[in-house]
């Protein structure tokens, strides 16, 4: 397994120098997050990830979870590591202080999540799902529910799940069959089968809080008839002491491609007692308000894997000796040159790194706007931030997870045959990253969300939240001689994006299938523009610090920006061409072709 060292300097660069989180010290949570405290938090989290989580990554993959008669045991070491993780208070980092959290900015939590995901994606699933359950209850639960469940979720004593998927439905949750019967005491009885439930059963916590989507007897058909329920494994008394076992059980765990240390469970509800969260039949909208967090968090998973893959690859490329450099011998005292001298190896490493760094900036930017949307004193600024996050969420989810898979694949390629061999730990990254493109809404669905839902809100209001400030920024940047090198290619890409948007508005309005056919290309085109913009901002900071003691660090940033502008962003031309070629290449194909 390649060693993982948290990229603390890069993380700080984005937080402190690019996003300037210090300028938001008027927002709650940010006031405590002074640069020195943030440094201390990041360093300790990094220490924990490298020291406790990363060493369990490969062994957890080899061993997997065990299922025995309804009981699930996590791989060796997970229970102890989870206990330490909870004990150290990491789960409560972004949570409400009223329930024992630290109330720190979400953007700081993104940085910590990135490190956890780089070190051990499977492990990160357990606190990640708890965070999802926390958000759902915090946003939609009654006071009583919050008082009962949130402190336990925040402390990590209990964990959470999200029970959406059923055998007949994953993407189309309108097909949900699980039933909820009202009881005389105001509670409900849930009956049905959920599949693929992450952390549905395990040995890490004394209780598990399931958030379940189900249908009431009087529910309208389809997606508007779904309600959300909270359904604990053990029924707690009002003081939170766990009591009787609820009528639900894990029927099996899946054997799967990756994240093997994360238990993926079949959950059978057999008249399990549950309580309504939010309003009747409004379960989907309740789910969606927290899904934005969850989708961004899955994007962060992709980012984490990409960083881990790069670190493994670059270390290997400096050590592995094969062939001589085409530009003349570089290591005459050795039998061959290290492969990092070869153009193709550099292409792979820089593709990983230049995209990963921009993805980090983009995801953290979205994270910071989440904080602004939640806490800014001015309603207009809150709305603007909320709009921007809504727009960026499908982009972050889909592009970052696609990049996680790409970067993991490149990591294996740099290792040559050794990448394919288990011992090196590089192929695990491919297997682990793969699911991130599928769950929390497949990446195909993210693209549909972008073109179908996000573009049409308020006749393009969300789009303008991105286009206006970014265009203004790029125009100013292009007028600065040193920055023009980066701003001009981004402006070109932005022009393509605007053209593509206009094309989509026309073609998609006439024929929704055109929009569906264009969605994938459009999302990637949008993402590349957003990443180009992030690189411009990073380059701007780097240019202003060329005289600093850390010149080499800032030079490296410019090198990354140059690679991105030369080799990555031109893909926008290709995407524009394929997208505007229309749906026929797919949709005119007769059904019997397949």
């Amino acid at each position, binding site marked *: 397994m390649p060693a993982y060292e948290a990229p603390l300097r890069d993380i700080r660069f984005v937080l402190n120098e690019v996003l300037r989180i210090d300028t938001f010290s008027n927002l709650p949570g940010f006031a405590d997050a002074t640069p020195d405290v943030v440094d201390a938090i990041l360093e300790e989290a990094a220490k924990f990830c490298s*020291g*406790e989580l990363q060493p369990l990554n490969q062994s957890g993959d080899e061993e997997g979870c065990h299922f025995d008669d309804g009981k699930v045991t996590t791989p060796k070491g997970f229970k102890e590591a989870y206990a330490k993780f909870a004990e150290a208070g990491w789960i409560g980092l972004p949570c409400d202080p009223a329930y024992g959290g630290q109330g720190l900015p979400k953007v700081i939590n993104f940085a910590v999540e990135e490190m956890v995901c780089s070190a051990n994606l499977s492990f990160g699933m357990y606190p990640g799902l708890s965070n999802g359950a926390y958000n759902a209850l915090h946003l939609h639960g009654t006071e009583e529910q919050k008082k009962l469940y949130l402190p336990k979720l925040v402390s990590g004593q209990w964990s959470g799940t999200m029970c959406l998927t059923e055998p007949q439905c994953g993407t189309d949750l309108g097909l949900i069959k699980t039933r909820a019967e009202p009881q005389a005491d105001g509670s409900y009885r849930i009956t049905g089968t959920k599949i693929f439930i992450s952390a549905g059963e395990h040995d890490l916590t004394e209780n598990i809080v399931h958030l379940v989507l189900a249908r009431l007897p009087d529910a309208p058909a389809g997606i508007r008839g779904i309600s959300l329920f909270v359904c604990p494994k053990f029924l707690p008394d009002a003081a939170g002491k766990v009591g009787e076992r609820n009528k639900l059980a894990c029927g099996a765990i899946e054997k799967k491609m990756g994240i093997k240390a994360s238990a993926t469970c079949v959950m059978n509800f057999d008249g399990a007692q549950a309580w309504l969260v939010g309003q009747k039949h409004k379960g989907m909208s309740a789910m969606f308000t927290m899904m934005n967090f969850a989708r961004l968090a899955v994007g962060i998973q992709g980012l984490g894997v990409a960083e881990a893959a790069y670190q493994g690859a670059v270390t290997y490329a400096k050590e592995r000796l094969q062939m001589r450099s085409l530009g003349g011998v570089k290591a005459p005292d050795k039998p061959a040159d290290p492969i990092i001298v070869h153009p193709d190896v550099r292409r792979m490493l820089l593709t990983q790194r230049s995209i990963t760094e921009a993805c980090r900036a983009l995801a953290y930017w979205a994270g910071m706007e989440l904080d602004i949307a939640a806490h800014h004193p001015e309603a207009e600024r809150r709305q603007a931030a909320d709009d921007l996050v809504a727009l960026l969420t499908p982009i972050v989810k889909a592009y970052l997870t696609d990049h996680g898979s790409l970067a993991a694949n490149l990591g294996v390629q740099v290792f040559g045959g050794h990448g394919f061999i288990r011992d090196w730990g590089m192929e695990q990254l491919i297997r682990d990253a793969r699911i991130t493109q599928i769950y929390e809404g497949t990446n195909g669905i993210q693209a549909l969300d972008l073109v179908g839902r996000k573009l049409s809100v308020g006749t393009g209001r969300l789009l303008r939240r991105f286009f206006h400030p970014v265009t203004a920024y790029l125009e100013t940047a292009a007028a600065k001689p040193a920055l023009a090198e980066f701003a001009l290619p981004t402006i070109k890409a932005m022009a393509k994006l605007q053209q593509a948007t206009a094309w989509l508005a026309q073609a998609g309005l006439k024929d929704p299938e055109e929009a569906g056919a264009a969605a994938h290309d459009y999302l990637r085109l949008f993402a590349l523009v957003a990443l180009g913009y992030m690189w411009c901002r990073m380059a701007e900071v780097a240019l202003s610090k060329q005289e600093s003691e850390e010149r080499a660090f800032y030079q490296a940033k410019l090198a990354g920006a140059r690679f991105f502008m030369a080799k990555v962003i031109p893909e926008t031309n290709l995407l524009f061409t394929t997208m505007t070629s229309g749906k026929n290449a797919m949709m005119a194909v007769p059904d019997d072709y397949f």
Partner: protein
Amino acid sequence: MKVLVAVKRVVDYNVKVRVKADGTGVETANVKMSMNPFDEIGVEEAVRLKEAGKATEVIAVSLGPTQCQETIRTALAMGADRGIHVQTDVELQPLAVAKLLKAVVDKEQPQICILGKQAIDDDANQTGQMLAALAGWPQATFASKLVINDDGSANVTREVDGGLETVTVKMPFVLTTDLRLNEPRYASLPNIMKAKKKPIDTLTPEQLGVDAAPRLKTLKVAEPAKRQAGIKVKSVAELVDKLRNEAKVI
């Protein structure tokens, strides 16, 4: 009972140390710095004493430039109660550190003063011993186990060349830590947040009446010589010949 722990800011143990081009020392600009690992063990031991109800207050002391406050914060995040920073930009050598610590000890009157057995940057292994001598206190160095007795003494197991040795020392005493004393904890997030609010007093060598000027002059710092590549010999006879006549070791 107060416990004083000395914490030194050193180049992080993961960093590959490089010698400065002019040979005056090692490169520390833009190099990750952190708490001397032996001092982390010291803080952990002190915090455990407090948790066990044996100590009432844990004070972390660091000596050196402003950035030492970060090291003190780390100790506070691990559970120390307050910090003392003796600020100076002069190069500090073991004797000066021992004198400064002696002055702090006089002020604070702790019952135990814990130091690392050495710092991983200069590996001097002198400060604890010098402090004990200056204070006229007993010393228990290279500790791998500490047991506080009810009568105001302590049993300390020491790692010595021949194995383990247990000594009894009367308070107040100086303890220097060895690696096996304990395994330092991870700081918890709530404690990291609390650490920000814990007080750090800043003093200067002048205020403590100590002349901290270096007594030793560093002539030159150099990398260890690169190891020569090995060679293969054809026979035992050739090996013996080379060992005798070239390496001159037999």
